[in-house]
């Protein structure tokens, strides 16, 4: 009763019911918040995969030294890093253009980000194909299973991101900056920038530290 007794109000002067529809709810902020929650669940997926990585790294010795060296090609991964970070920067540029309401600016930013995303994918799949052709496959042992799973799971996100960017280009072209398009552009920004965060973990904990395990 504590909350009720110390407030004294007169029935006549108290506002009991709100007028208007949304009652001050921030629709766009609600959308991005939910998407951010999803993004965090995805981060939890990565955390679980990294926990598995930590456990299975105990048996890294099953893979020969030369194989490990070809899997953890730090130079190649560094090249991937630059391309992905540049793509993220391009998408950031699109977001700055969105602030100004420039459709061309947003389109240019997204197209550059898409192209860089495709280049990233191309490099990653090229590396994977090369490894597979040499017989370095996830089926060899538990450690390689988790390493490839991490890399491929991240690459799948890039595929989704690229698809999403193409869809957004179409929707922007059709509708302009409606609230639906704007919140999706922001969600895509969260998604795309998040991939850079995950890549930092992948680059450091898998590609750089994998060599010494």
């Amino acid at each position, binding site marked *: 009763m504590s909350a*009720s007794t110390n407030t004294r109000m007169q029935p006549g002067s108290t506002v009991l019911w709100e007028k208007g529809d949304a*009652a001050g709810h921030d629709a766009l902020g609600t959308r991005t918040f939910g998407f951010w*929650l999803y993004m965090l*669940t995805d981060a939890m997926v990565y955390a*679980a995969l990294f926990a*598995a990585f930590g456990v299975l790294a105990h048996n890294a010795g099953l893979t020969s030294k030369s194989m490990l060296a070809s899997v953890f090609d730090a130079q190649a991964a560094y090249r991937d890093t630059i391309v992905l970070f540049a793509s993220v920067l391009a998408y950031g540029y699109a977001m700055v253009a969105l602030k100004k309401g420039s459709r061309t600016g947003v389109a240019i930013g997204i197209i550059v980000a898409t192209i860089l995303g495709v280049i990233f994918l191309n490099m990653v799949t090229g590396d994977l194909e090369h490894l597979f052709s040499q017989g370095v496959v996830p089926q060899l042992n*538990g450690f390689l299973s988790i390493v490839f799973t991490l890399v491929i799971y991240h690459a799948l996100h890039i595929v989704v991101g690229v698809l999403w960017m193409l869809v957004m280009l179409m929707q922007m072209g059709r509708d302009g900056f409606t609230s639906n398009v704007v919140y999706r552009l922001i969600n895509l920004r969260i998604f795309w920038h998040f991939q850079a965060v995950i890549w930092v973990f992948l680059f450091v904990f898998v590609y750089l530290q994998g060599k010494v395990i």
Partner: protein
Amino acid sequence: MFVHLQGPWNPVWGRLSLQAIPYQNPILVGTFLFAMIAALAIVGAVFYFRAGPYLWREWFTTVDHKKIGVMYCLLGLVMLFRGFIDALMIRSQQAMAVGPHSPGYLGALHGYLTPFHIGQVYTAHGLIMVVFAATPLLVGIMNIVVPLQIGARDMAYPYLNALGFWLTAAAAALVMLSLFVGNFAHGGWYGFLPYFELPYSPGVGVDYWMWAFQLSAIGTTMGSINLIATIVKMRAPGMTWMRMPIFTWASLSTNLIALTSFPVLMVSLALLGLDRYFGTHFYTAGQGGNLMLYNDLFWVWGHPEVYFLILPAFGMMSEIIPTFSEKTLFGYATMVVASFAIGGVSWGVWLHHFFTMAAEPSVNSFYSVTTMLVGIPTGVKVFNWIFTMYRGRVRFELPMLWALLALFLLLVGGMTGMMNAFAASDYMWHNGVFVVAHFHMMVLLIASSIFGAVEYWFPKVFGFKLEQRWGKWFFWFMVLGTAWVFVPMFILGFAGMTRRLDYVPVTQWAPYLRVMLVGMAFYVVALGFFVAHLYVSLRDRMKNRVGADPWGTTRNLEWMTHSPVPAYNFAFIPRVHARDEWAWRKEHGMANLGNESFEDIHMPRNTGVPVLLGALSFALCFALVWRIWWLAAACLGLVVLVIILRSFARKTDEVIPATTVAGVERAAQDALASPARG
């Protein structure tokens, strides 16, 4: 790329063939006939009453949180029935198959179920009760109540809400289908590694289990995102955090648990999937795999999941007990803190599910201590409920009876849980029925709270009260059944009986097992009373019609709108002035239900897309279970395509005109005026 299979496979049908249909098994044929008759009766009724278009328009395509909640509850009830039949089979098999001289029927050496069959039965029982009965019932009630309690017109993402439901329904359908096409996993609901690997479990049972589990996990995660965003972003003006109803707090903490832990379940199952489909070595016994990694990841989810189930139950008790004690809840702030403390600690206790893994003593001690810590916030809650009743005017109506039963079961389950927390003693009864009896106390607590909550909120959703007479018979027979089944189970646990036996070698245990069977008979009678309860309530629905506040002493926002709740929940969004706003308004003489100058209301539009996505996911999982690659690829492509196409839809909202709102409000007022209230 895919792992080499033992046994036949062809590109068109995958592993599917006529042999997959278990027509030799009389139990399954009987089940199939029962299911077919039930299905024909339902379909026939739909056609007879020409209800098809109505069902599609008003229910299947709905994005209304209340209707989705009701569908969740119906799904939960159906699966609860299935899980109960499984329980009946386990108990009767164990009562029959005692000692070397016990007779065998239907091809079993002892009892009437072969080891392979009873393996599937207990696996299905566990999975169904946790994931497809308790979870949908709880999610359904949260879905209905939370937006009403915070004064919102719908959830934050109504479309996602429907999608979450249809994915859960698709997963449940997959489990049911495994009865008649193929078989189900037979190694326990949480899976055993490396036993669940392809070489040791080459059939489709594990795949059914894995994909149904995975699909429901996705559905539950979606639901949790939705509820959290709804609570954080959609509260009515004036509802500060510390004015939020306690059930909403419980829902928030429980969905935070779901949000954080379900992804780990998805990983643990996905890695098993990679092992089974691609031949990787995550959990294999050799080749650098680690089978304990599965247990680790699974229980990282598994223990928070237990609290995901129990926190809403606590929330329900916290709503029911103040209403029927005619007092405000004792210790609101400590209740909130306790909910979050339980949620937080739940993330640091998972190893107690496998104390016997041979981790270091320091590790086992750590997890022992964290597990015991759970007792502190739980104890706080128990005392808060007791102090709420203390010097209150306690009315023993049905919801209150259920809440009190839940409180009692919590004491039994909690105390035995503390016993399980000791690593040293756990070495004695690990995998024994003592543990089984303990966690059944806890899930029966959850079930009791659910029954109480259904009794409590039913009039809000449907506009009439459930009758009390048959409901009380149902209640007391559930009490009887619980006592007769689980007291002997605790005793057998001390005697050293292990869980999941298809044959009981110790003849001295036979009396206890028979007592448990009597308990099951009480449960069956209770089920009959439950049906009578529902039937009589539905028959007398016009007599039992109620107004906005059927219990008279309710306290929160959900009781400030009409019963049944209109599609838009509130004609006007309420402004909140106090914790227990409705009690505050009644106290200050402001208990009117709004004024006359109604406005247009924007609501999301119904859509069939979630049903379609649910159906496609079902087909996708079915194709993956039977390794029909073309179908799987087609379904996956269609899912992506449907999602993209849906994102191009422009008209996702609609307006309820002010005149319609006025009409609905007036009709509700009139309905209230005609019969006697309460």
